[in-house]
């Protein structure tokens, strides 16, 4: 059964087309991540799924039920907002119980669900506190708790980690992954951070300017990007793009090669000047210039390389990507011999 499907969804605000012919499906229990640059329409898409925004045309199905005419609270969804959106005048327990009271559940049931959720999220000590008396990470957990207690068929997350600091972000990311394992509910997660997308997703949907560029599993997209945008968006450091004539191809063709698929080899013909070195301890990133094209090389371990040094680079022929000037992927068999 499909937990979510969007069919030919379009959305415009006045004359501005924000979403263009979006077709997306999610299986039950799948973790789907919408990723794309700022302003590409991720939040709008999520709000359409939630029912907070109407589609201009197209259809939304949740658990194979058409929900275009169904209000948010009847869609079986729960949503975690970017700003947490906790009710400032209600304490943690009441924040979590409001939706359940609206549904008219029995007091005992509500109590039990709150206990379960707060135990799961380590919030038992904070139930009587107000949101202003919590840290950012705790507020985040309350927001997630408020979603969990509803026992929805579909979780929606809108950039839930963007207000947290780096360390907390990694922790909370793990917690969300665990949560998905425990609940095995379908989750739709919006982010502009490709690392979050790669680490959490069963399926990534890459959006750009309101269009789906590509959808698939993280490794599918990483290893087999459909176009230059997807290739450049996923992976960190991101893929290098070089003019085709460096390898004796048509000058309009663009060569894409990931930083880990370039080696330093004295016997290679491609010479480069080191511009910058990033020593990360476990990895070393070398930014070099090949006839005025910046190239990032990712080396494993620690290397003594200095700025200004001359090095020779070798591209891994098995892992080259070719794109036409419009960014559409070309057939690489000719160069992968």
């Amino acid at each position, binding site marked *: 059964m499909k937990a979510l499907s969007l069919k030919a969804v379009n959305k415009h605000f006045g004359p501005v087309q924000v979403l263009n012919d979006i077709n997306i499906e999610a299986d039950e229990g799948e973790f789907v991540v919408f990723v794309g640059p700022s302003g590409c329409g991720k939040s709008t898409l999520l709000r359409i799924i*939630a029912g907070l925004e109407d589609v201009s045309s197209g259809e939304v199905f949740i658990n194979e039920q058409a929900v275009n005419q169904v209000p948010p609270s009847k869609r079986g969804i729960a949503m975690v907002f970017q700003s947490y*959106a906790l009710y400032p005048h209600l304490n943690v327990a009441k924040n979590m119980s409001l939706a359940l009271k609206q549904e008219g559940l029995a007091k005992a049931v509500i109590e039990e669900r709150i206990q379960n959720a707060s135990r799961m999220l380590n919030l038992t000590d904070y139930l009587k506190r107000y949101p202003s008396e919590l840290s950012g990470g705790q507020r985040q957990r309350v927001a997630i708790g408020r979603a969990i207690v509803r026992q929805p068929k579909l979780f929606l997350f809108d950039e839930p980690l963007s207000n947290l600091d780096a360390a907390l972000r990694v922790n909370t990311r793990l917690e969300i992954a665990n949560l998905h394992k425990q609940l095995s509910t379908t989750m739709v997660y919006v982010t502009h951070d490709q690392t979050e997308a790669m680490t959490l997703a069963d399926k990534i949907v890459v959006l750009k300017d309101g269009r789906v560029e590509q959808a698939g599993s993280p490794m599918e997209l990483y290893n087999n990007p459909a176009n230059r945008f997807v290739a450049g968006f996923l992976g960190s450091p991101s893929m290098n793009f070089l003019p085709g004539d460096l390898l004796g191809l048509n000058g309009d063709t663009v060569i894409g090669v990931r930083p880990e698929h370039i080696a330093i080899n004295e016997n290679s013909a491609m010479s480069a000047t080191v511009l910058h070195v990033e020593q990360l301890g476990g990895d070393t990133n070398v930014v070099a210039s090949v006839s005025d094209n910046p190239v990032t090389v990712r080396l494993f371990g620690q290397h003594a390389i200095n700025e200004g040094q001359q090095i020779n680079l070798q591209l891994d022929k098995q892992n080259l990507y070719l794109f036409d000037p419009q960014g559409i992927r070309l057939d690489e068999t000719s160069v992968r011999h």
Partner: protein
Amino acid sequence: MQVHSARGNVFNATLMHGALLLYTLIALFPVFVILINSFKTRKAIFREPLQLPNAESFSLIGYETVLKQGDFLQYFQNSMIVTVASLSFILLFGAMAAFALSEYRFPGNKWMGLYLALGIMIPIRIGTVAILEMMVATGLVNTLWALILVYVAQGLPLAVFILSEFMHQVSDELKNAARVDGLSEYQIFFKIVMPLVRPALATVAVFNMIPIWNDLWFPLILAPAEETKTLTLGSQVFIGQYVTNWNAVLAALSMAILPVLVLYVIFSRQLIRGLTSGAVK
């Protein structure tokens, strides 16, 4: 001596508190004079207006006159009903209009807001004759409703203006969260937005309360009958063209201050609690 603490220096703090204290004294002085003189004999009021009442000058004659003359309790009750009812309607309808203006996009939204705010600049008393004619036509003259309706009309423009500014600041995500949680638009208004703009509600209430309580104009014109007289109007009997019964006037004023004071304390509590609860947006 440590002059500087983390949050500012002691000298500045002293200066600031000194200024505030001075202002408080100046503001409270007239009230104080009214209160002490209301407990004195007529002679003592004129001879030593700033002296506290002592065994010789102490007298309750003012209060006795006030309580004997006319139906003072009735006036009191009328004033209370008019003020509380007017404030409730101003806050309720003002907040509802402000919510609609700030939350929903509809054609003419801007113009509607401007139209509602226009009333701030036009004194309602200009329309007194027309209002009186309307009240006569609807048979509302000499009812408390006449006063309540006029005061609501008078208070709404500023209420809508202030409240819609505050409601703009309640984040959309919060309202969307409430929609996902299954609250209806009315519940969002009453359970989420109203509690969050409580400081603004208190401000509007305080701004409107005192002019309504003290108003003489409309009670005199629209409801001068004995059974609908307000406190301010009722007290006028003691102020004659040639002789003024100062004992009674001062006693009536002292008693009129009390209820506003109580209302004010209630609202300002709300105001302070609203400000310190630290809204999380």
